[in-house]
């Protein structure tokens, strides 16, 4: 049995002439968490949907929980949990009816259904809404119900597409804590795509950065940080002749920027040489008292923006079928 919960090889998907995902390969070990990052239209969601067998890849394959998404899509779906970007439910059904319906689709034995439903509802904090109509749910509650339905299959791999999109800060925090708890308690492998980069940093061990349908980088956040950052960002808090210190620092070879804001100096220096002792020395020699010396690391956002080439517009609207094609054609010809 493979050690990988997800093993993606050469996954490719085209929409007409547009290559939405181009030859993407990566692996995720069991129990680990992987974040898919990229700008809009970079190919994250298409990759996600191919991995959960909602979209058939044009080339390549993905083995999820030991099953091939092309050859055994039903087996894949039985062993995963998937939470869509905007979880939608039947608005005239209650929470309990919705989850019972999902249980039936998952072939959960009738005797186990109630126990499993109570467990997941307790986990996501919707037990008191068991008999409430889903139509009256807020966005945050729908996200929680989305997670609850994904957990009904007792999944080995959990796919979360933008799990906190549109949630208020408290809702996002609760969702993040819930995902972390699931990872710890049930050793579920988590794959998530998100634009909220601190959230990815908090949850994921490894990230893959998508750009124009390509996977341009894949590593741990720390490794990516050191590989993509060539400079050190230093924040110096001083008492004394700040301008004089700033002038002295500008003369140091390897210091590319010194910015004064009040009693603070923001310094960008080359990583190639160790300049930190020299900076401290210059401050002291210029009769300044150093109150604090802080090192600012590159954020995931800096890394992402450094790695992607440019902004990407969203994918064109994809609709299936000849009737849709006819209406699209008509709209084009009207313009």
């Amino acid at each position, binding site marked *: 049995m493979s050690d990988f919960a997800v093993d993606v090889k050469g996954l490719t998907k085209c929409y007409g002439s547009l290559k939405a995902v181009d030859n993407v390969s990566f692996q995720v070990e069991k129990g680990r968490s992987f974040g898919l990052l990229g700008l809009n239209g970079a190919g994250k969601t298409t990759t996600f949907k191919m991995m959960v067998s909602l979209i058939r890849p044009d080339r390549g394959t993905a083995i999820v929980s030991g099953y091939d998404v092309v050859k055994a899509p039903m087996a894949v779906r039985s062993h995963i949990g998937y939470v869509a970007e905007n979880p939608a439910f039947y608005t*005239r059904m209650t929470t309990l009816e919705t989850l019972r319906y999902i249980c039936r*689709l998952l072939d959960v034995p009738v005797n186990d259904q109630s126990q499993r439903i109570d467990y997941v509802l307790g986990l996501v904090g919707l037990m008191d809404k068991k008999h409430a109509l889903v139509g009256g749910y807020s966005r945050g509650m729908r996200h929680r119900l989305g997670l609850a339905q994904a957990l009904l299959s007792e999944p080995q791999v959990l796919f979360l597409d933008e799990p906190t999109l549109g949630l208020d800060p408290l809702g996002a925090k609760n969702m993040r804590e819930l995902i972390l708890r699931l990872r710890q308690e049930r050793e579920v492998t988590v794959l998530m795509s998100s634009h909220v980069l601190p959230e990815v940093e908090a949850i994921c061990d490894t990230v893959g950065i998508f750009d124009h349908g390509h996977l341009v980088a894949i590593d741990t956040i720390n490794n990516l940080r050191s590989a993509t950052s060539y400079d050190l960002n230093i924040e110096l808090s001083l008492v004394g002749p700040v301008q004089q210190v700033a002038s002295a620092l500008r003369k140091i070879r390897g210091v590319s920027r010194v910015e004064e804001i009040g009693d603070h100096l923001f310094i960008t220096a080359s990583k190639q040489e160790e300049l930190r002792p020299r900076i401290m020395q210059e401050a002291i020699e210029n009769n300044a008292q150093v109150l604090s010396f802080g090192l600012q690391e590159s954020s995931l956002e800096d890394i992402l923006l450094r790695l992607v080439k440019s902004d990407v517009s969203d994918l064109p609207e994809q609709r299936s079928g*000849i009737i849709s094609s006819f209406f699209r054609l008509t709209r084009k010809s009207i313009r």
Partner: protein
Amino acid sequence: MKTMAVMQRELQENLRNYKTAFLLMFIFGAILMALYTEVGPTANSKNVLDPFFELFAVLCPMIGILAAMDAVVGEKEKGTMELVLSKPLPRRSLLLGKFWAYVIMIVPLLVAELIAAYFWAQASGISQYRWQLPMPPFSQWMTLVAIVTCVTMLFLAVTTLISMFAPTTATTALCALVFMAPAHPLGGEFLRQVGLRLHIDSFAGLPVIVKFFLSVFSKYQKYALTIPGDARLTCVSLLIMTFIVLLIASLVFERQNVAFKN
């Protein structure tokens, strides 16, 4: 089993969103229209089957369209397609579950209301005082009920198929109505022209295979109302066609690259 789950959910949804009640009223209105409007029998009508059949030949496809117009596209519009297709649910089960839900929703209503209409027409004597024609025997009335039920089922399947390709529920209804509206008069004219060219002036004596294809035409269905053998053949043919349309829909849906709302 999963087909049953989909069917039960669809029935539940349609009861709660008043679709079933609306269809009940629609069929009721159609019967009232047949009984109390000026749509009357033709000169050579022997009983009141004719005006009823003429009206229901047009209304039954509409009932089918109204019931199934959101079959697949409705799930896409609501965004629930992604939810169900991410579960181990074969797409054919989704289609069949929905189809059977519509059948269970429509057929009892249609049959019950048409039987009630028969007894009402008889009890009130409306056929005599409006058209001076007798009511047909009950068995013949049930032949009409059987044929219009089969026509409705065929249109349920056709609309389900159309809803797989249409971008919205409204477009599905529009496309199905565009397909249905000229079918009635054009079908009759087509049969007349073919009959003239081939010097055929009666449906009697035609081979079974020809009658199989003729059974989609209301002109032949009307003829079959009075001939038990042809009525049986029409019903069987319509059911076979319904099955074929559903099979095509299942095969296409299995391979279709479904576009999701997100």
